[in-house]
């Protein structure tokens, strides 16, 4: 009995070799010295970490949840939001070396002898009071120009998909760190205990695709309850969630109670915190048996909503369906809703492929913003649309205006954000006349993460997790909040 009452933290098995040695070396002297060495001890700065309770924002947040419309494969900024008339005038000329300035190339164009400039296949027009430039590929997004904030000066260090998308998700090009959604779940907790706080929805266009892997929604070294849950299209959104035939809900309850008591015993024995996570996840799954089918069921959505998102939204697994689903999940308190739409990797046949990709996402993305706006959800939901890097202003492969391609380009690309404390109706940042280098207000991925966290009420320098002897942040050791973007 006594054994049972022991707190898991005091479990003798929890002392490992490291603990032992560190205990050994601690004396009054080293403690005193240690306190002298804390660099911020007397600094008039933010409060100590321990004062900040987890699961609560550090300051009053503008955004309570995020819907991230990730365009996997990297849509070209030159055919979306970054209008460059110079490329039309100098079409076919080589990109001057002084502009490229030593930028490394991917293996796909490093053998190319020429780098002929290629203008956009789509025309550009200005929209809204802000006069934002949007290409003809995106007529619906153009209609919400005054609700969104276009950033044309994003930049990254990665030049290939996997490191770039990993960088965007986790703040590091090497995999293994927790991703944005997991950090938000860790920092802010769940709003609805019947649904995971981090949900992933994927869809795929006809364009050239790159893979998506579950590591992109992994919780890394954070507790596994912060991991993203992939909701699949179709009858079983979550695999193995439904009970087998012949098992009633009360049978299930009984089973769970028994398993849970066994697990608790095991937890007392080993002190492994993952066991607690496992118990919590079984319970969550039990409640999700009711909540998930409920949230996924769009049969009660009015005709006007279906029309708004487009008929596609009734076909499970399409981007439009995922957008509608994203709104429903946000309404139900999911903290971070991550959409991926594959097929934006246009190394060739860009004009046709991109038109197709745009047709997949344009209307539904804009409809989502409008729908959130009319429901007052844009007040506290942040929507983000964008890919992992940009595309080159020169043509990849044969120089053919009807069928050109663009290679990867890390130095400048465009994304947009809407709602959640971000200034609407502005275009931020600027690239040079070639659309190659940023000349005004660059926003690095770390800055983007810092700003995202700021809108959620989190100080990116304060939300940390200690692992393998040091504290980790989403922004690691960099990142500044871009105040100009905040409403």
């Amino acid at each position, binding site marked *: 009995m006594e054994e049972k009452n022991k707190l898991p933290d005091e479990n003798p098995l929890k002392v490992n070799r490291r603990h032992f040695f560190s205990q050994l070396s601690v004396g009054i002297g080293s403690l005193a010295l240690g306190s002298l060495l804390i660099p911020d001890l007397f600094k008039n700065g933010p409060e100590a970490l321990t004062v900040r309770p987890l699961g609560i924002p550090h300051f*009053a947040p503008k955004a309570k949840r995020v819907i991230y419309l990730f365009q996997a494969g990297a849509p070209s900024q030159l055919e979306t939001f970054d209008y460059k008339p110079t490329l039309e005038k100098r*079409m076919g000329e080589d990109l001057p070396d002084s502009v490229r300035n030593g930028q490394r190339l991917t293996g796909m164009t490093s053998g190319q002898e020429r780098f002929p400039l290629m203008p956009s296949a789509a025309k550009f027009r200005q929209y809204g009071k802000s006069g934002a430039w949007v290409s003809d590929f995106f007529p619906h997004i153009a209609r919400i120009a005054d609700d969104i904030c276009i950033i044309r000066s994003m930049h990254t260090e990665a030049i290939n998909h996997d490191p770039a998308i990993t960088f965007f998700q986790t703040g590091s090009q090497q995999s293994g760190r927790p991703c944005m959604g997991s950090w938000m779940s860790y920092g802010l907790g769940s709003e609805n205990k019947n649904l995971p706080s981090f949900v992933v929805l994927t869809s795929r266009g006809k364009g050239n695709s790159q893979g998506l892997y579950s590591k992109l929604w992994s919780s890394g070294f954070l507790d596994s309850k912060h991991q993203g849950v992939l909701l699949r299209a179709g009858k079983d959104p979550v695999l193995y969630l439904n009970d087998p035939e012949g098992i009633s809900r009360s049978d299930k309850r009984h089973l769970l109670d028994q398993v849970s008591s066994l697990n608790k015993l095991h937890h007392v024995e080993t002190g492994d915190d993952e066991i607690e996570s496992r118990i919590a996840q079984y319970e969550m799954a039990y409640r999700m048996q009711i909540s998930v089918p409920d949230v996924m069921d769009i049969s009660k959505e009015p005709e006007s909503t279906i029309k708004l998102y487009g008929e596609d939204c009734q076909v499970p697994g399409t981007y439009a369906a995922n957008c509608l689903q994203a709104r429903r999940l946000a309404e139900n308190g999911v903290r971070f809703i991550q959409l991926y739409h594959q097929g934006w990797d246009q190394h060739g046949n860009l004009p046709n492929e991109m038109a197709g990709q745009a047709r997949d996402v344009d209307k539904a993305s804009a409809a989502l913003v409008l729908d959130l706006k009319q429901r007052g959800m844009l007040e506290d939901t942040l929507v983000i649309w964008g890919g992992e890097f940009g595309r080159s202003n020169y043509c990849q492969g044969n120089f053919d205006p009807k069928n050109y391609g663009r290679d990867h380009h890390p130095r400048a690309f465009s994304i947009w954000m809407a709602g959640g404390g971000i200034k609407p109706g502005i275009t931020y940042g600027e690239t040079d006349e070639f659309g190659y280098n940023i000349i005004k207000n660059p926003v690095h991925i770390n800055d983007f993460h810092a700003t995202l966290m700021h809108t959620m009420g989190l100080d990116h320098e304060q939300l940390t997790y200690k692992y393998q002897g040091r504290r980790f942040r989403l922004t690691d050791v960099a990142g500044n909040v871009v105040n100009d973007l905040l409403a």
Partner: protein
Amino acid sequence: MTLNFNKRWADYIILSLSIFFVFCLLFESYIAPPALVAWLGQWHPVLLHFPIVLLLIAIVLKFVGTRIPPMLLTVAVISALLTAITGFLLGLKSGNKGDLLYWHQWLGAGVALTAVVWYYLERTGHGAHRALKGLGAVLIVFIGFAGHYGGTITHGEDFLALPGSRQEEKIPDNPLIYEHVVNRILKRRCVKCHNPNKTKGELLMTSHDHLLKGGESGSTVIPGDPDKSEIIRRLTLPDDDDDHMPPEGESPLTPDEVEILERWIALGASDTLRLDHLDPTEALLTLIKEMMEPDPLEKWALLPDVADSTLQHLNSDYVTITRLAGTTNAVRVVMYMPPEYDPNHILNLRPISDNIVEFDLSGLPIGERELGLVAACTNLEWLEIDRTPVTDAAMDTLNVLSKLRLLKVYDTEIGDESVPLFMNWEHLEKLFLWNTRISENALASLKSAKPDLSVEDGITGDLEAFFVAEDSIPKQDPPQIP
């Protein structure tokens, strides 16, 4: 008891420093020290710690009756004189001496010269024991006040203020832009060094007249021309520039604060301009309105305390109660539809009704009793009762919610009777109101009565038509090679 002094050199040093110092004080207005001598003044902040500590030790020893080591007193007195002299040299540089500096200088001089007298009495054994103790007490008072005034000069008037006591006054509804906004920024960031006591660069920033008069680098403010105004030039220099203001180590102005100063100067830097004189499109208007919006955490500091255990107790699988930020007592409550709806989930929240600032009851079959609880949440700023069976009568009970900023009532059965309610809530900023029974006339009258209120009445008209229409992405028409 005579102290055993046998260091004649110390006597000479003390005598000569004293004479030099008294001479300085007497002929202050005739003194213009060469650069290198003036530079010695910079050592004042370093030296001043020595006489304070050494003299205090000596005085304590005197009081407890222990013999003062002669060398201690000697060094204490010499350091007091050196501090006074360097302080005098530093003071010369500041030109216009304010009250604080005046008192600091004479009290400092008092410390040094009293210490010399004490040294003399101890040295010669003339002073009665009791008189010497009295002298010590006087010294403590002098050191205390001189030190405090010195600290105030360096660190600002409120450097000893308790945490939280530095409250700024609220900006009134229609502020005078100079007095309530510009002056507030200057007070916060600049006045610490540009005040009558410490007039750096001969610039006073405590009044409108002085600000326009400028300082030694010329016109601080040129009305109508921010680009030529020294203040804007210095504020916008790169941080590492020596001329950048505020100097390194002081907290800089926020970009919004700089922009406010810039726009105010551009508009003529007047001290009679009020907020409602501004053109509606003027950038200054939004900037100031933003500044007038209080930090929510400050606003919520007045809410009654609520314990974590209470919140935890009321939390359930379908009701999520969280603090809005950090340790604030403002609470957000969200309820999701449980498999079996039970009004008690909401009615049980009465103990924390004063703490609920955000309440989300969207899509729940709430009745009058639940709305009664909502009406008891007098601090409510954010209410979501869209897609509920709320009625006009029930809405009327909510009229006490005077702090309401945002209300979602779309997709409900409310009608025109609720419209006067929306007009009454003076803090209401955003209203989501589509798919109700409210008539177009009533909606139009609401919009004209409250032009600042943002009323969302759904996706209609052209926008709706554009989205409902068939795919409108045009066929591609690739650019031609010129």
